[in-house]
């Protein structure tokens, strides 16, 4: 039986006069790999940022693992979540960012072990063993003692993926993780993510313009436009026979770019 791990229920978000999410509702099942596509400003990244509690919705409810994300129960009523609730909920999720965001003051190994030791409470040796395994998987076993500034963009992003996986999250959020990379380095990162999708039992939400990657790893693709989902289908169906004209137009423009 599959269960719904993530639920967006009538979520709205505006930045000043711009509507970013417009009465958005959708669900993601546990273990599902979902790719979010659409033009810039259509709300894809905002969804990931909300799941990571980096951005709050203006209205609506987001539920993660059966618990409201931005609300908590006080008796019979739901109130706005405090920092403690948010911190608890964050444990379900990690995010890999477009700009990697590794900690430049820490070596690679420490970047990966910092949170497992101090958040999950792992012994240092156990965290290092886990980190070594993950860094080996992303092809960076020889870079444990390097600082992020000594690595290429692709290598940094692979460390960021290892760092996220070291937390053993239920949900892995990938926000345009190859957008800042040239095609060759982007391919290395996407190969690593294909491995991750094969190896780890993790729910993945991925914002990307890498359509081949989306087709390879996704169970479902959501096409966004102006803060709404205008089409949702398995990748073969959405890429080969899109129902909406806006989807066809978007896919044409992405293919032209690449």
């Amino acid at each position, binding site marked *: 039986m599959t269960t719904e791990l993530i639920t967006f229920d009538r979520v709205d978000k505006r930045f000043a006069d711009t509507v970013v999410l417009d009465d958005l509702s959708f669900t993601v099942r546990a273990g599902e790999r979902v790719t979010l596509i659409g033009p810039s400003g259509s709300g894809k990244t905002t969804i990931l940022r909300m799941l*990571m*509690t*980096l951005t709050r919705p203006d209205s609506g409810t987001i539920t993660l693992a059966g618990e409201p994300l931005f609300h908590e129960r006080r008796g019979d009523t739901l109130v706005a979540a405090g*920092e403690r609730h948010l*911190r608890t909920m*964050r*444990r379900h*999720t*990690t*995010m890999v*960012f477009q*700009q990697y*965001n*590794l*900690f*430049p*003051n*820490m070596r690679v190994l420490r970047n990966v072990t*910092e*949170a497992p030791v*101090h*958040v999950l409470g792992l012994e240092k040796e156990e965290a290092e063993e886990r980190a070594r395994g993950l860094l080996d998987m992303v092809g960076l076993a020889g870079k444990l003692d390097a600082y992020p500034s000594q690595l290429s963009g692709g290598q940094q992003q692979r460390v960021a993926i290892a*760092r*996220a996986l070291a*937390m053993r999250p239920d949900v892995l*959020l990938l926000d345009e993780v190859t957008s800042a990379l040239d095609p060759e380095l982007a391919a290395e990162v996407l190969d690593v993510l294909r491995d991750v999708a094969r190896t780890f039992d993790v729910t993945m939400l991925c914002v990307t313009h890498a359509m081949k990657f989306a087709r390879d790893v996704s169970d479902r693709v959501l096409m966004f436009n102006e803060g709404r989902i205008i089409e949702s289908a398995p990748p073969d169906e959405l890429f080969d026979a899109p129902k909406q004209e806006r989807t066809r137009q978007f896919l044409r423009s992405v293919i032209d770019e690449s």
Partner: protein
Amino acid sequence: MTFDWQAAWEAVPPLLRGLVIALQAAAIGYVIALVLGLGFALSRRSHQRWVRLPVGFFVEFVRSTPLLVQLFFLFFVLPTVGIELSAMATGAIGLGVHYATYTSEVYRAGIDGVPTGQWEAAKALSLSRSRTWTRVVLPQAVPRVVPALGNYAIALFKDTPQLTVITIAEVLSVVKAVGAQNFQYLELITVAGLLYLITALLIAWPVRVLEHRYRREVA
């Protein structure tokens, strides 16, 4: 007017004693400025308004009033409410608190310079707020402001002559005391000026080294 080299030479030992006292006050004051300034900077970013607002008011108040007035206040007013401190403690605290208001701005600039992505990455890894500050933000913020903090060390040292008003026997006090006896102010002030210059250059040297090292690292 002739310059009396003999008088200048004889002025060196008492002026050096004054310099040591000035350096003691400056060193203690600087440590206070570094620690308290960081406290001010962190407090001004607090989510708690009852922390943020009073600290903000205090920092603005101290920064907008003269050090001399603050030294007078600490030395002459505090004893009337039962707080009695030695002249050296008063001087060091006065300098430290005054300069903490400047160093807090330096720290603030350093903290603001840490990219938002670093805070977000810390959040994405569920790091606690204290861990985020101590392991992610401050280790990145502080090195980049070391040169600016070093410049305040020089500025603070150059303000030590103001301690003369609260009876600390630093360099200017020695000039006044010895000058009252021999009236050879030209020689006294010249030697005192040279001592200030040499000391300030010695303080500036490691600051410049750190500045160059940081520029190389970020280049």
